[in-house]
């Protein structure tokens, strides 16, 4: 097997995995597929760009800034846009979230136009490992994505807040009856997911180029990974991300690269027809 394709696939997977996990966290607590992820990631990328290139902050500071702003945006969007509509059908909320994604993306377009941009970082020579090339930024992305996945897993399993998130995702009414405040846990989940989306924006800006569509282009692979892993299962989302990331890269062997997006869809379609609950998800119990 071609090692370069494998490396590319891994980098691709590390762009997808953290936001796919964040997406399932949000889904667990909010109970609808929030497709505004694309808009959030775009906001993250451009906030980091603003801090890094316009304010001339170092990239690490700019990244933290982007994570904070995106967390705020995700939380505010829930309070202002989605929470008042919680009685609507999930599909209506899905359309609203896509509309909201378009609003965010076009707000960015309004201020920054569609020009292609990049971070202000020194160009570094790619590292060669057994003939496969990987840039230092890609290496950082790879390691950070892995660290985040492990960190989220630890938070969910061992911390008070993580258990509360799982409890709300499991049974929201019972969680409230046991004294958990839905408002605070929702806010906390939004902030955590938002920080991850912001970071993904920075990753994507490092690996690709910064433009308003940066988030939308990642939306389908992210959703595919989440579905593949079973919505609501962070570890599943990681495995899903690796499958989707690899599959997208390996497609290039057999099809023109423009068909890359279709692969994500085909994986989802075939998979859903065979196993609607995902790789790790529990079969849904009918009420």
């Amino acid at each position, binding site marked *: 097997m071609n090692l370069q394709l494998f490396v590319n696939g891994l980098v691709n997977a590390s762009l997808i995995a953290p936001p796919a996990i964040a997406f399932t966290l949000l889904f667990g607590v909010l109970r609808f*597929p929030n497709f505004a992820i694309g808009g959030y990631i775009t906001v993250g990328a451009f906030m980091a760009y603003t801090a890094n290139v316009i304010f001339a902050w170092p990239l690490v500071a700019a990244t933290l800034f982007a994570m904070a702003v995106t967390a705020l945006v995700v939380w505010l969007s829930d309070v202002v846009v989605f929470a008042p509509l919680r009685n609507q*059908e999930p599909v209506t909320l899905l359309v*609203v979230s896509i509309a909201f994604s*378009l609003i965010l993306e076009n707000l960015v*377009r309004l201020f920054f136009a569609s020009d292609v941009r990049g971070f202000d970082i020194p160009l570094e020579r790619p590292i060669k490992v057994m003939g496969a090339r990987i840039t230092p930024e890609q290496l950082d992305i790879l390691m950070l994505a892995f660290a985040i996945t492990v960190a989220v897993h630890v938070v969910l399993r061992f911390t008070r807040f993580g258990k509360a998130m799982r409890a709300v995702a499991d049974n929201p009414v019972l969680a409230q009856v046991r004294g958990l405040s839905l408002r605070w846990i929702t806010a906390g989940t939004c902030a955590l997911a938002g920080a991850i989306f912001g970071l993904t924006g920075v990753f994507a800006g490092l690996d690709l180029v910064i433009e308003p569509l940066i988030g939308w282009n990642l939306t389908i692979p992210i959703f595919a990974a989440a579905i593949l892993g079973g919505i609501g299962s962070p570890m599943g989302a990681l495995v899903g991300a690796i499958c989707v990331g690899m599959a997208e890269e390996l497609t290039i062997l057999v099809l023109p690269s423009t068909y890359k997006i*279709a692969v994500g869809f*085909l994986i989802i379609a075939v998979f859903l027809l065979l196993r609607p609950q995902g790789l790790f998800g529990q079969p849904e119990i009918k009420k």
Partner: protein
Amino acid sequence: MLAYIVSLATFVGFFMLLAIALNLQWGMTGMVNFGIAGFYALGAYTSGILSSKLGLPVGLAMMVAVLAGLAAGAALALLSGRLRDDYLAIVTLGFGEIVRLIILNEDQITEGPRGLRIAEQPLAGWVSVENYPLLYLGLVVLAVAVAFALSETIRRAPMGRVLRAIREDELVASVLGKAVLRHKIRIFAIGGGIMGLAGALYAHYVQNISPDVFLPMVAIFIWMSVIVGGAGNNWGLLLGAGIVMVLLEGSRFIGDIAPWIDAEKLSAGRIILIGVLLIVTLHLRPQGLIPEPRYRNKFQRKS
């Protein structure tokens, strides 16, 4: 100015056709379709290729386009009719994107990103060139009226009641002995056919079609039309489609009278406006502008 209004009205007509079709699929059976652009493109390219490359009469080519939409709708529903809403959303979205990617890549047949030129037009030569747009508008209005009547007939017929039963509770509907999947396939196919017709009408109207028109965005706009207008209500969605299309196309007009506004900013502002419209409408009128008429049953009398 008149020409502009006629053209705007024609575009509103395309949107209305798509919205009527979506309302059949979602508003009346609860089946989600985010692949509207795929059906629209399928209709447009089927009719366009058949008439411009193979020389089929336009009327026949358009009929084949309708059949293509029907067949695609039936096939998609057959494969995924049992899926959950959010999953069906992604499968249909994928269908739309795959159709677009095929058009983009198989350029020996579709001309790919260069765009397909279609000289042929229906009823060409019946009226003078300057009056032709009016005739075409009439044709589109006729199509909308037929689709509307078909949809209303289905809504009022016993089948409409079955469809609502499916939407409200699949288990109940299937226990009642209704073949849920068969009805779903039938309705999804009819919806697909109407979308195919809309595509064909669009193709012969603009006479130059390219894949970048058939982005997933089309589905989002139609969804907004149906939700803003009021899901399940055929009058509401005509209003919704009108509002969304007028905002989309009508704001281009601002560019004509105020050329100093940057086109990119204008198009961004337009999309923001439509998004905000959707969200504000849902906050103020959760059932849409013209809600679905209530169907009384004995459980509702208590309230």
